[in-house]
């Protein structure tokens, strides 16, 4: 665009007495008028009032201003309001600057009016200097393909497929196994509702199969993922046959697997030592078959086997095992009322309402709970009659108990698939210490990745029960739907720009950027505006000074640096800083 001389309009606000009561506003205005590039200056009681806004608009027209500085309060709350005024008067919003002389001046220097006034002058001068270097910015847009790829055909994947498909989005549901259903296929009954897992599963599988918007790819693996939000190119692999398709968003619902406690409590030595999932399989075969196998007299379930360990990856609590144990214990008790069922635990993780209630029911059903500590885990040794002797120190009772059991069940944690690491590289999204997928923000972005357009749900994100997995499955459906419903994403105006002549493709920026916004193409860095969040870490890091940050350019910041402390008002505008060479070069 044609560079026109900056004509800065300055509006100094009294904010009632909040500023005016401390800072000598007229003096500031008088001073401001002496500054270079200032074409107009005035003061208002409340610049943010409807009246104040109108005066700004009027002044822009009247004095053909192309930069606006308001000296009042913090930009964090008021910038949008004043930018609005500029836009209405035909000035690009990024040509507006706020000088914060309230929060950072009048309110904190109430007892020193003179000094505060001096400081206010400096603050406004800095703003004016910066304003002179401001450039108009546009928030560009990237088109989004209203199609989602869902990796993993477990109950989470199935649920979010349905939710998205029902909203009219196309869905590719990719499952590496020949059958949909994932972990739920391995489970007999569900807690706390005591339903038959297979029945529930059938229903939802039928629903996805019959949905016109859902394209199911079983026995299929993802080979590669290229592109970025709105424009991913997927290559899928089905028995050596490749298929390629485009999607706008990617949802990771790959689930988790049960940890196999090899070498623990004789798991791989004695056939009467099972994991909970093994037990589920046994139970699935029905009571009559189990009777043929044996009628348990005494059963011991050991919690936290291979979980809550000293060191990662399995330092975590697997969240669901306690309820699984309670559920299966009660089932066994129901089938074999005469049997004794023990749950040997560290802390019963029966949180919330239903689970606590179930825990209580289990105790009433005479399931026996024995507390052990990490320092003093139970021992399992075989007996001649192929039963097993479980020796455990009941920490709360302070005595050793010996239980001769004909079945020992180990509650082991859910762990990440081996294949996950590969997928995380493919998608450029991180895994945590626990090897589960790591979300953008533990608190407020539980199902997003830092990289836009990619989401995670269910046990791929960490152990959780069905209800929690489905909450997340629906959650990702909402998160992914936004860009797809809009058919586009707005990109930040404040983004990095790479000067390809200076860039040597050292990949420093690519390494630093947590959002994957820098991609190296033909040995040079390119910024994907759709992904850049505008923090400027790369710009500050670039040794060739090839990266500039829009709206926070070196010129703009330097202008502030130089004008922060001046004993007398400068007569010339600040010259652009030469940022050609690197320090020490």
């Amino acid at each position: 665009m044609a560079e026109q001389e900056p004509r800065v309009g300055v509006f100094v606000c009294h904010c009632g007495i909040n500023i005016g009561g401390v800072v000598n506003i007229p003096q500031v205005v008088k001073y401001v008028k002496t500054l270079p590039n200032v074409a107009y200056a005035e003061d208002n009681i409340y610049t943010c009032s409807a009246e104040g806004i109108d005066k700004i608009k009027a002044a822009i027209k009247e004095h053909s201003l192309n930069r606006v500085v308001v000296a009042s309060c913090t930009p964090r709350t008021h910038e949008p309001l004043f930018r609005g005024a500029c836009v209405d008067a035909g000035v690009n919003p990024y040509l507006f600057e706020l000088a914060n002389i309230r929060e950072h001046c009048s309110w904190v220097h109430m007892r020193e009016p003179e000094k505060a006034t001096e400081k206010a002058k400096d603050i406004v001068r800095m703003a004016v200097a910066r304003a002179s270097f401001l450039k108009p910015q546009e928030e560009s847009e990237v088109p989004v393909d209203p199609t989602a790829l869902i990796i993993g055909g477990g109950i989470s994947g199935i649920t979010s497929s349905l939710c998205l498909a029902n909203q009219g989005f196309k869905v590719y549901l990719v499952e590496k196994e020949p059958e949909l259903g994932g972990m739920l296929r391995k489970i007999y009954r569900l807690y706390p509702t005591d339903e038959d897992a297979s029945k529930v599963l059938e229903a939802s599988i039928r629903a996805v199969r019959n949905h016109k918007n859902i394209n199911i790819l079983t026995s299929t693996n993802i080979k590669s993922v290229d592109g970025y939000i709105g424009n991913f190119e997927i290559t899928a692999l089905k028995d050596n046959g490749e298929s390629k398709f485009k999607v706008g968003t990617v949802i990771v619902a790959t689930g988790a697997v049960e940890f196999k406690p090899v070498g623990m409590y004789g798991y791989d030595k004695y056939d009467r030592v099972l994991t909970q999932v093994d037990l589920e399989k046994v139970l699935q075969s029905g009571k009559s078959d189990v009777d043929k196998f044996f009628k348990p007299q005494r059963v011991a379930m050991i919690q936290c086997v291979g979980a809550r360990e000293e060191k990662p990856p399995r330092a975590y609590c697997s969240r669901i095992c306690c309820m699984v144990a309670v559920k299966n214990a009660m089932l066994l008790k129901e089938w074999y009322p005469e049997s004794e069922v023990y749950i040997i635990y560290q802390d019963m993780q029966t949180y919330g309402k239903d689970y606590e209630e179930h825990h209580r029911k289990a105790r009433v059903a005479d399931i026996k709970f024995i507390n052990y500590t990490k320092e003093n885990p139970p021992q399992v040794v075989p007996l001649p009659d192929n039963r097993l002797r479980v020796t455990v120190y009941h920490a709360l009772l302070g005595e050793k108990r010996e239980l001769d059991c004909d079945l020992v069940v180990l509650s082991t944690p859910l762990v990440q698939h081996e294949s996950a690491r590969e997928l995380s590289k493919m998608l450029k999204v991180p895994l945590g210490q626990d090897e589960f997928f790591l979300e953008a923000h533990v608190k407020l972005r539980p199902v997003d990745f830092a990289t836009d357009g990619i989401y995670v749900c269910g046990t791929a994100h960490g152990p959780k029960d069905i209800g929690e997995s489905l909450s997340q499955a629906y959650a990702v459906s909402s998160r992914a739907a936004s860009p797809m419903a809009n058919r586009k994403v707005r990109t930040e105006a404040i983004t990095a720009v790479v000067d390809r002549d200076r860039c040597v493709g050292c990949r420093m920026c690519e390494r630093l950027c947590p959002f994957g916004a820098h991609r190296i193409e033909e040995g040079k860095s390119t910024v994907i505006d759709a992904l850049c969040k505008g923090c400027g870490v790369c710009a500050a890091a670039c040794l060739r000074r090839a990266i500039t940050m829009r709206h926070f350019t070196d010129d703009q910041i330097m202008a502030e640096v130089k004008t922060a402390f001046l004993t007398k008002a400068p007569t010339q505008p600040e010259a652009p800083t030469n940022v050609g060479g690197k320090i020490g070069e």
Partner: protein
Amino acid sequence: MPEFEPKIVGFLCNWCGYAGADLAGTSRLSYPTNIRIIRVMCSGRVEPAFILNAFENGADGVLVAGCHPGDCHYRSGNQHAEKRIEKTKRLLDLLGIGSDRLRLEWISAAEGEKFASVIKDFTEKLRGKGPNPLGRELEATPVLHNGTESIYDILKRTKALYCQECGKCSSSCPITRLDPLYSPRLAVEKALMGLQDAVLTDKGLWSCLTCYLCRQRCPLDIEYDELIRTCRAKASAKGISGNCAHEGVLFSLSRLMANPETRQNRLGWIPQEAEIAKTGDVLYFAGCLPYFNVVFDDIGVKNIEIAQSMLKILNVAGIKPVLMENERCCGHDLSFAGDLESFEKLAKMNIAEIKKSGVSTVVTTCPECYRTLKVDYAELFGAKLEVLHASEFLSNLIGDGKIKFNGKLAKKVSYQDPCRLGRHMGVYDAPRKVITSIPGVELVEMTRNREGALCCGVSAWMGCGRHSKQMQIERLAEAQATTADLLVTACPKCQIHFNCALCEKLPVKKEEVAIEICDLSVLVARALNLTQTPNMVERIKNE
């Protein structure tokens, strides 16, 4: 029918009485065969409990023979014997067995003759009197599962299955704090692990005060007191029992009262001037005060004053209460000591009597009677009785202006919440209302009061020991620290136990603990100038 042959149990001292009996033998002096002889080294060894036991087990008479005054091989044993026999005679009269069925004789080693004649004479007298009315047991059909309930069912019924093993009970229990070997939590957990024997043989089973503090605080409201009561029944069914205080005299008395044949003379305490009625609306259930009065007079507790004060107050309020000629022990202590069978008998007979009297309200001065009549009788035998504790009844009377205090009682007073009245029954305000309504009286609370009050250290006459004493001293010190002149309690047993502690050798300075203990109704009677009790504090000081 054949002539009645009385059964006589003879306790003979080794040096005189027994030797005398031998001499009778060597001199071939014949006497009736009715006596069975038990040798003791000294007549001083013979306890009231032995004698009561003999009668419980069907003896028609008991003979105690010792050395002549001054001749005692152990100097003064026979003097103690005399005192005890005296006491026991009074109890026998109350029970309606009759003091003449008990005989104390001085028989020296030289008095074979005398021995023989005493036997003859006693046998004849007893033959004349006829058999001990309480001799024969009557069969009752018990509704209470006396030890038949399974541990699991007990745990279920008392909600102990909900236990979260959180330890709130054990960190509250006053006994556990003194004796970590006992802990409500561990008791429950053993039971949960199905360790039946461990539970029933555990000494701790008998240390519990059933003071309800653990239950009060238990987040799951586990009925620990009930759990203990049932387990004790189960244990005693297995022949296990704890050690009972006072050699079980009080249990014997209760068991004897459980006999339908019993015809007591328990109303002797009623003052001449007092007015009582045969029928009416209000029944005053005095409980075992007349017996306590005998058993504990040696520690200077005049328990009967409680009853007398109450009666006078009622009269002042224009009420002529009904008193039951043959009122029986409510059974509270037996039930908490594991003898549910006798408890059931007592309960049924009391219920019948009360129903018969046709009263609309029953008033008790004892919180244990109160709980038992109001809760247990209702829950276990479906007897819906309108029962009020004295504190409630009095505060109503005061509220209705039926009792007016003229004149002040300038006393600083602290109040001991009895476990049964407070935590068991939730009565905290009534007694306080009564106290504060007395002109001049200032109520100062101890740090642990109401729900958190500390028990007096013994309940159901079980296992009074070191820890009980410690608790009593601790509590008395707490009371003394309030600078109160009086420690008022609404339970005769608190009064007994605190006084008992004060009578023994104190581990601390007297002035730190020596506070006068006074029952609520006695306090009210005093405020109405109806009575005057000797001041405990004085008594101790000049000991």
